[in-house]
């Protein structure tokens, strides 16, 4: 078993806007591309041109349909990656200490040299956020691009996770969720950001912004936004109205 460090002063994490995510998978491939060449071993692919291609991805996007009681069904795109929980069960379950939570900012990482590929952490994670790399036999997971965010070889503006940098609809945000004045904390406050599956007691750092309400019912006429008033019912009436109106301009 591995122990968690004291709660960090800084809690780096992602804020993912489900109102804006179009499900394009850009973040999935940017993550795959970056981590394939930046980590000690690539994110492997098995049978990439074959009958059953599978591979290691640290971030995946799912689509779920929601059927409200009234109105049309909705489709929510849901990006899923490690939430860097305060009470990360994947860390405490690790028998070798390979899983660890960085004391300075709370990022949950795997020390591949110590990982024996037992898979306990994947069982412990309620979010399915860890993936066993079948080529390396070690557990891989989102690092919040720890090799970007502090990397002096990158321009300062690029020191953020690859998924955030690439997101075309700007649905992904990165920052310190322990700082109430950070941009991400303000966004969470303004938009009512939520924890994913809080009942699991993992205290995730990442937050999701829920979709805004959609699809007012067709006959739900707002007193502030009523249907249009009619000025003319037939062509001659409209043309006369136009002339009268233009005469006033």
């Amino acid at each position, binding site marked *: 078993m591995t122990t968690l460090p004291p709660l960090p002063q800084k809690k780096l994490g992602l804020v993912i806007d489900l109102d804006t995510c*179009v499900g394009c998978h850009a973040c999935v491939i940017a993550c795959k591309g970056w981590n394939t060449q*930046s980590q000690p071993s690539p994110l492997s692919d098995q049978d990439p041109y074959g009958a059953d291609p599978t591979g290691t991805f640290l971030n995946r996007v799912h689509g779920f349909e929601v059927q409200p009681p009234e109105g049309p069904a909705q489709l929510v795109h849901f990006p899923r990656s490690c939430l860097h929980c305060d009470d990360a069960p994947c860390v405490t379950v690790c028998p070798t200490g390979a899983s660890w939570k960085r*004391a300075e900012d709370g990022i949950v990482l795997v020390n591949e040299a110590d990982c024996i590929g037992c898979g306990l952490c994947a069982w412990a994670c309620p979010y399915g956020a860890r993936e066993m790399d079948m080529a390396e036999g070690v557990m891989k997971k989102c690092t919040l691009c720890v*090799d970007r965010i*502090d*990397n002096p070889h990158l321009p300062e503006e690029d020191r953020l996770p690859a998924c955030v*940098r690439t997101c075309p609809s700007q649905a992904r945000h990165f920052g310190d969720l322990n700082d109430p004045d950070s941009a991400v904390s303000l966004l969470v406050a303004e938009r009512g950001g939520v924890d994913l599956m809080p009942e699991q007691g993992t205290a995730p750092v990442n937050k999701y912004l829920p979709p805004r309400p959609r699809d007012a019912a067709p006959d739900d006429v707002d007193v502030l936004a009523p*249907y*249009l008033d009619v000025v003319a*019912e037939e062509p001659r009436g409209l043309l006369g109205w136009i002339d009268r109106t233009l005469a006033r301009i």
Partner: protein
Amino acid sequence: MKDQPDPDTAPRISDEIRKTTCYMCACRCGIDVHLKDGVPVYIDGNRDHPVNRGVLCAKGAAGLKQVLSPARLRAPLRRTGPRGSGEFEEISWDEALDLAVSWLKPLRETAPEKFAFFTGRDQSQSFTGWWAQMYGTPNYAAHGGFCSVNMAAAGIYTLGGSFWEFGAPDWDHARLLLLFGVAEDHDSNPLKLGLGRLKARGAKVVGINPVRSGYNAIADDWLGITPGTDGLLVLALVHELLRAGRIDLEFLARFTNAPVILDCDPKSPDYGLALRDEEGRAQVVDRRTGRLAPWDGEGVEPQLTGQIRRAGLSHRSVMHHIADRYMDPAYAPEKVAERCGLAPGQIRRLAADLARAAFDDPVVLDQPWTDFRGHRHATMVGRPVAVHAMRGISAHSNGFQTCRAIHLLQSLLGAVETPGSMRFKPPYPKPASAHPRPAFRSRPGQPLEGPHLGFPQGPEDLALHPDGSAARIDRAFTWENPLSAHGLMHMVIANAAEGDPYRLDTLMLYMANMAWNSAMNTQGTIDMLTAQDEDGGYVIPHIICADAYSSEMVAYADLVLPDTTYLERHDCISLLDRPISDPDAAADAIRWPVIAPDRDVRPFQSVLLDLGARLGLPGMVDAEGQPTYADYADYIQMHERRPGIGPLAGFRLGDKGLQDGRGLPNAAQIDSYIAAGGFHEMPVPPEAAYFKPWNRAWADWAVDKGLAEAPGFDLVQLWCEPLRRFQRAAEGHGPHQPPDSLRGRIRTTFDPLPVWYPPLSDAFEDPAEFPVHAITQRPMAMYHSWGGQNAWLRQIHGQNPLYLPTLWWNRLNLAPGDWVRVISSHAEITVPAEHMAALNPDTVWTWNAIGKRKGAWALDPAAPEATRGFLLNHLIPERLSGAGGWSNSDPVTGQAAWFDLRVRLEKSAPPDQAQPTFPPLRSPVPPP
């Protein structure tokens, strides 16, 4: 904690970044290719680039896998087995080019029209078109005929610019965005960036689409419209706005042809055309005098409701006709809602939302400007309603008129080129009247007199021989499809196989998968490609295919010219064809070889120049017969289309050094582009940024930068005179007459005002027998067939179920894992089914181009793309049954009407794989 691990958080992932342009779709984003020891290791977006501002989609980020693909061709190929077998031998480039010359040279000297050159994902159309023009064949086009010509043609004939790809919403100021039929593509990253910006400031997005995926999933309101009825919805909105008087009278009077006076004398040859003065200028009633005046006269104040009496007849303005047409109760929401699959209240509500967004809080920019009549405006007043529309409108046989209806709606709202609305990207606006007419008269040994593709203004511009027969193999610019401004690539193989209008000798295709996912009636197309005449020769004797990958089409070529990938080539994304401009800047870009190819492949454009030189084509050889250009890079820098105007507008040579737009060729131009990050921008001055079609500052700037040779203005053509000229001919007037079989169709579909009619195939396919609409969408992470070989992307979209709405899922009593037979009037397929609730109740859909033929693309024959993936293409006929062989296309533009497809569904016992199946191709490249 001191004992925590210390991972390397500062790896050097690359030692060099080379900035070039993506080629994974038509967005043409800027990319940073990170190289380590000369090997590309990572691609991300170029932060400075005007298209993508640093972001990049899944396709772009997976670009390395395109370069590393096992499907890449390795050397030129000559067919050795029967066509379609996939049996080839690798040959040298000299052998390949000699073979091509042996076919093309005698043809050019005898019958150049028997050579046809059509291109698919070509991003060098101003070059490939010029090459075909120099060869002298009338038979050239790119793939616009089955992509988006309805949007382009309707936009250019109406507004002088189009949604895709020469327009964009005003993301900075729009408060309401309507998305019509926009799937997950075109204009992918700019749209996503824009949607994010709208969302960030709380603007409203309304999606109008049978399928609620992608952008429609994040729309605040979704109208799950029945396919092919968007035009009816739009005209109902027009009806509501007119009845409410919620229209922009000043915009209509000043900037549209609503005040133009029409000849209302039924006996006049010009009945329904504008009254004109001796100089041919359309007339309006000037409010200042009450008399006729030219539309563009200095200081003229057009009267919107003008009319004059002459010889006992009233000649009325277009606005009268608009009121007559659209005030008709037939367009009332109650009358159209059921057909559209909507509730009347949804239409009323949308009309009210549009009116409020447009008029209750206009955008006012503190920017004076002067219009073409010399009227000085103190501010720029705009209507913050933006519209974007694409494939769901385009791919129907009523798509041209539906797109025109949308432009009418925008114009009534004053939401064209005004702040907050739709804006044009330079070099647009450019009205149809300023475009060339199609050139088609071929003469042995001579170049064509002009470019192939143009914008006919009337029947006299059709590409017909004196005997009335079609000049072009695709029958573009004939009475069947008079305004086919992008050609009809989808009909080339079918027409050539039938020898109607004539036989071809050699067909050359570039980056087009016509033997699979780019054809309607795929099985039939395969049969046509392999059809033999009585002598045992192929009906299409020679097929040349240029592609980088082992596509299904490659197997049907006699000669394969292997292309490089996008990281190994020069390209120019040019203002002469499809640049990367945004509304605030004219911009172009390059690709350059950031790596060298590792095999015997050559960039196709350089191969074309080599071939052109070997054929002695004008412009490609000098007086001594030596090649004019060393390669495509040399052409990009040194070619002049007009004096001072070349493929790239930046870093041209002037008297005082480098200059923009106009200037002499610069042999170091590409180096300058590379140093600048791969692109170049010419910012539009603030006074020219809006109201461009009518703005003197814009016109002057466009001339200064070489986008135009003289200032030009035009009104929004709400009443479209070219349409009326064809309609008038169909009424029996004038020297150019359509065949009688087409008169009725032209009278109906060439209405000079936007009109809705049901998809043409509904007349031949009983909606009761085929009650379900079937369409495709392109996934955001995949583009055409190219993505299917990509090791990363195929893990996202490796198969494509047919998505069924709840109504049909329940009616067929389906459960997860079930299969369905999908039956059209033409063919049937059996495919895996999945339930999706967020659908129009009578529409099924699937992702396009996922299904692959066994043996193609170097995939395992057991790959899910080849066993469970499928194409809807099999179900779509290329000709309308029982309609005299007319193509299954929009009758105005020839746009392939592949979204008109109707089917019926039956539950099926699960077959061992998706049906139909095809014999495996023998792969011309080794397995991975």
